[in-house]
């Protein structure tokens, strides 16, 4: 399984649980989170806290930009990119 898939899953699970899913409530890996207004400023901060805690990453300020939050897939890409190279077996 590609390393990114479980990250996408957990992002989607988080979004379903806490974000204001305003439109249909359906979230898929390529749902546009910014364009559709699903992530507002408070939700983005909550999400970043979750990602930092859950994946042990620290989001540098210059990565805190919309491009990295456009879809669950983009968020997962960001996490994978920032995650320390764990357990390189």
């Amino acid at each position, binding site marked *: 399984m590609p390393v990114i898939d479980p990250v996408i899953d957990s992002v989607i699970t988080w979004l379903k649980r806490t974000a204001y899913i305003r439109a249909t409530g359906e979230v898929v890996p390529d749902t546009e989170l910014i364009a559709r207004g699903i992530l507002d400023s408070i939700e983005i901060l909550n999400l970043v806290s979750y990602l930092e805690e859950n994946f042990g990453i620290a989001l540098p300020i210059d990565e805190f930009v*919309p491009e990295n939050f456009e879809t669950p897939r983009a968020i997962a890409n960001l996490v994978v990119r920032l995650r320390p190279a764990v357990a390189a077996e």
Partner: protein
Amino acid sequence: MTIMLAASPLIAPLLEDRAGAAHPAVSAGDVVLSYGELQRAVTMTADELRRSGVRPGDRVAICLPKSIATLTLILGTLAAGAAYVPLNHRLPAAQLRTILTELRPRLLIAANDLADTLDPDALPGLRVAVTDGVPGARFVTLQRLHGAAPDVASPEDLAAVLYTSGTTGEPKGIMLSHQGMTSFVDWAADTFEVSAADRASSHAPFHFDLSVLDIFCTLNRHATLHLLDETTTRFPGVMRAAIDKIGITMWYSVPTALAQLQARRALKGVQSLRLVLFAGEVLPVPVLRQVMADLPDVEFANLYGPTETNVCTWYRVPGPLPAEVGTLPIGQPCAHCDITLRDLDGAPVAAGETGEICVTGPAVMLGYWQKPTLTTAVRVAGQAGTYRTGDLGYVRGDGELMLVGRRDQQVKLRGHRIELLALEAALNSHPSVQEAIAVVAQDAAEGQLCVFLSPSGSATGTPSELREFLAARLAPYYLPDRFEFVAELPRTANGKADRSALRLRAHTATTK
């Protein structure tokens, strides 16, 4: 170039020719308007409004996202001698209809889709103008005018009506006069020495009272106003880049905006800032201490005041902030305001005692639009030019005014006024809810709106159902951060829901 005579003292200085026509007045993204261009845009917009039937003394409702075009509509409305009424374009259609029905503006200016949603034909007497809404447009052309223009007189000297939600969630239109707004704007511009060298960031939407300082202080002193878009304010990385790129010197926002940036250490190393003003809610001192440590050469001031008076007291924060400071004072009355502390009967309290903060002065609102009873109720002994804030305060030994809390259940969160009772009333009308209690849990950075619900029978609404239910009834900022279902709400000795117990519980849940 011919400069028209200003119909309002509020915009007279910005229309004067002393700035130098090429000096930048306002920017949004890559679009920049010079003072010469802004003056022309305002003149043309005022002409366009007059052609659309707007006369001095009218009200013009402007229900559009923040943009340069929206700003020129506000200024053009004032130039045409009318009062501007900025409305949140994200309010539910039902609430906008309520406001428009009571406001009876000469003209409503809205974007196409909103105008359709509102169904103006269902609002008899409402004249609607639709703008093309081109981003970055410098002035607007009004299309598709229809409807009959009502004739309802405004109070003399009306410059603006700012809407906030009232005790039952019912909107209240706060009427502000030219004289009052000018007295506040002049005070702020003098006190903070705003000059043509300043570049100010505009964070607040135009329907917020913070925008009065943003727009008029900046433009009347020929400084440059930078309208920030939502992407910028939402992403600390983009915000920081914008601060540096624009070279922001003056910052004015609700504390939340500062706290969010501080949480990412996004202010460290900013060189351009000289002044940071915050208002609208309490900024936790630990956060402020960090912000001040990251911006050691910047002047900080805590501004206090409800929309009914705009800023009426202020406190220049000494830097570095002494370690023993736990709560920030709201400081001293502004030069154009008198402050008294009164008991429930309206009598001044003794020195050092806690009383309701009451404001007297030219900047106090003219009243609530079409609500004379409520207007009288919030005045000191019914007197015009006075306002009882509903906030409690006391004067500390060193003469600084301290804010204690609210007399009722109104809270401010992320810059929005939230009537907890209105939120509870809305939830109580949902079939699955027996009783709802809303509380604000404070953590270090900001409050969280939490709702505790006891279910009615076996049916339990899911949080998303309840959100949807609320979204159709209340403004978006009323949507709780958390819902918690409890079998039984804790009670006080006299049987009322125990709000302090719930606050504590919400707080523990937030910080654990």
